[in-house]
């Protein structure tokens, strides 16, 4: 049951999008998210959707994979949609008993839904086309200018990469403990939610003790291999910008320009 959990959701493929520098991809997603919040009308979403769709096509990640990323947020999506639909004041379009749907409510509900869906598209493309290790490297590189002001950029990156290494192991461990306890009659799968959470407690305690042991051993092993923080460290993988990264940046600027124009110069649209 626990073995289904995979970290991240990398979709292995050799596309231009996959090969882009992780720093460029992270910056692009951040810009894209900011732009989504600046969009004034549906035309802006149409532009954003076109941009996202073009990137998805170029990445070769099947569209249904992107949709799958929707599942965990489907409830939030439905909830925002319904709340906006029924609770927004304005000119009434339809009413049934205590429920009214207003014109502004319908607009707002659709508007928010579009924003959420497009947000998920963006982050899904990033995680589908970038290996978790590369994401960490990219984030470290982007944050490192901040370390001059005491921001722990390297530490955050190493914490993330250690988590990437040990989460699958802890999951395996949890699976083992669960099987051992099931063999002795433990029941994790029936009863209401409180019962089920309670039955998981004996699973977490050995897991936590195990994790502390690992942390202690690992800290010593890292010290033995001359780890002393980020200063003076070189890297096996050095990120280099290529022509494709420049091209992607130009396209990103064009997209951002369009959205800003839509916001600032409504007459144009």
């Amino acid at each position: 049951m626990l073995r289904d959990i995979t970290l991240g959701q990398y979709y292995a493929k050799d596309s231009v999008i996959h090969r882009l520098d992780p720093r460029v991809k992270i910056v692009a997603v951040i810009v894209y998210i900011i732009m989504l919040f600046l969009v004034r009308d549906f035309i802006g979403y149409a532009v954003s959707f076109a941009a996202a769709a073009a990137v998805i096509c170029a990445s070769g990640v099947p569209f249904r994979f992107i949709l799958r990323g929707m599942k965990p947020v489907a409830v939030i999506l439905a909830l925002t949609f319904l709340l906006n639909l029924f609770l927004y004041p304005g000119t009434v379009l339809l009413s049934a008993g205590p429920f009214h749907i207003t014109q502004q409510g319908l607009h707002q509900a659709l508007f928010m839904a579009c924003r959420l869906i497009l947000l998920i598209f963006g982050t899904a493309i990033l995680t589908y086309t970038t290996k978790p290790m590369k994401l960490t490297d990219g984030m470290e590189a982007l944050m490192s200018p901040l370390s001059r002001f005491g921001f722990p950029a390297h530490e955050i990156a190493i914490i993330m990469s250690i988590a990437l290494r040990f989460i699958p192991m802890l999951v395996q461990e949890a699976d083992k403990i669960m099987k051992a306890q099931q063999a002795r009659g433990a029941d994790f799968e029936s009863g209401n939610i409180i019962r089920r959470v309670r039955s998981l407690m004996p699973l977490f305690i050995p897991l936590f003790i195990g994790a502390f042991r690992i942390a202690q051993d690992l800290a010593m092993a890292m010290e033995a291999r001359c780890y002393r923080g980020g200063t003076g460290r070189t890297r096996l993988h050095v990120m280099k910008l290529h022509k494709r990264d420049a091209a992607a940046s130009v396209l990103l600027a064009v997209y951002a320009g369009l959205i800003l124009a839509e916001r600032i110069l409504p007459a144009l649209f």
Partner: protein
Amino acid sequence: MKEIEMENIIRIVDMTLQYPPADEDADPQTAIDGLSLEIKEGSFVAVLGQNGSGKSTLAKTINALLPPTGGDIFVCGMNTKDDELIWEIRRSAGMVFQNPDNQLVSAVVEDDVAFGPENLGVPTEEIRQRIDDAMKKTGIFEQRKKSPHMLSGGQKQRVAIAGVIAMRPRCILFDEPTAMLDPKGRLEVMNIIKALKKEGITVLLITHFMEEAAEADRVIVMRQGKIAADAPPADLFSDTENVRRLGLDLPPAVEIRELLRAGGVDISDDVLDMGSLARVLCAGAEVTDGTERRRVREE
């Protein structure tokens, strides 16, 4: 003076290590008690001893992970008490731990092997060269893109060894590297250790397996933080009474050798492993076999 230091890659002088007491009233726990030891460069030394005899503590003090509370330790002539030399000491005397899972840092094998050189500030092109060398030497080059949790225990331990080799150490301390492995994994790791020794790297192997100790040039037996015996394995294991008194077992091959001796077969003390035991017995068998065949021909 310099020459002596070069010859003795590790020199420990009257070293004591006390762990701080668990609570205020308790006495401090003495793990190493006035130990002196010299290890020649290029030798293969096995360290035996019962649980709690101070073997791991000894390895950690040599790696400068624990500062001695008394006495001095010199690694390649560098005192482990000198804070400025700590990194050079850890680079020169690398360490491989018992649990293969808890010493790998990265989610990708080659990145893990690169961790040490990265910490040392080795230039990128040289890191690539060093890790490829190290991974080929330990036979995990084909696995370089995999995640450690997809590998067997033996493979993981070889990744850990590659990570140390990539730092280009002169000496490697192994703390029970095979304790958690199956027989196949143990054999793989032992073969690498022997290959390293052949290359001139000094090996200090802490183990509970007597047949592994039998492969060393020199065996040190620890008891209560002191050295209880220090001899070549052939000498140590020839005195079976003494071995039992030290709380050790005999290597399986020596056990058989002793039984054969008791049965009247004459076998030398140098026979310590199954391979040489088999060779000695076969040599004997060939003679009888040969005489028999000759007899058949004569008829």
